[in-house]
């Protein structure tokens, strides 16, 4: 089991204005950790993509939905879980392909960025029930000194 050093849970209405909030929270949590500045930029993009997807695709821009986030810091790094109870994804593999989008004016880059900027991305989804994205970023020093 990972040893939790810090955990923040956040839930907010599915409105685009709250995406900034999610980025600010994760940036503040990373401030004291072994991450580089580029790492911080990576994590902010990944969070922004997952929350945008929850609002735009999950809840189809309905502001009455809620987005649930859990950020967990452990000695290994940062775990991010972002969840919605929206429409769900019909074919996860297809959805994660580069340039695939179900909206005509979108680029299909969200999952591309999540996968390139995080060390691990897992997607769980059920049609009509919702979507859960779990991501992990290893801290700069993941190796524990063996005395």
């Amino acid at each position, binding site marked *: 089991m990972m040893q939790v050093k810090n955990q923040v849970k956040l839930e907010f209405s599915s409105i685009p204005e709250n995406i900034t909030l999610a980025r600010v929270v994760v940036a503040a949590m990373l401030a004291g950790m072994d991450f580089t500045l580029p790492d911080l930029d990576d994590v902010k993009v990944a969070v922004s993509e997952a929350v945008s997807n929850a609002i735009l695709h999950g809840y189809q821009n309905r502001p009455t939905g809620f987005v649930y986030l859990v950020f967990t810091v452990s000695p290994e790094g940062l775990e991010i879980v972002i969840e919605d109870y929206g429409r769900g994804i019909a074919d996860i593999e297809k959805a994660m392909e580069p340039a695939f989008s179900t909206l005509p004016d979108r680029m299909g880059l*969200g999952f591309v*960025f999540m996968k390139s900027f995080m060390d691990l991305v897992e997607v769980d989804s059920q049609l009509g029930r919702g979507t859960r994205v779990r991501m992990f970023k290893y801290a700069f020093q993941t190796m524990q000194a063996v005395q």
Partner: protein
Amino acid sequence: MRIMYCNPGIVEIGVFDGVLVVRLQGELDLGVSEGLRVRIDKELDRQRTKNLVFNFRDVKFIDSSGLGLVLGRYKKLAAQGGGVALTGTNSTIDRILELSGLFKIMRGYAGESEAIRALNGGGR
């Protein structure tokens, strides 16, 4: 009283040598990209120009929504025989532009004047 949340995802817009120059600011995400799109498209129609420069100097953050805005303007203008050039990108934004493939269809330039000159057919 109503306090409105305000993300300064906007911009200075001007026309130089027939090219619309858009100086983007702030955090270009889902929250601001639609408003920006409307504003820029209105200006493109009003100025009747088919060339556009995006200056990223004051952009603090961009994700796929912001990139969608840039690509959308490119598609619109390319269809009219115009073009889009980029300037002012830092290493973080460069990496995202690279990864998205946008750098394959739009070029980056050292400054606004270089970008404007390139869109107007190089030289002079």
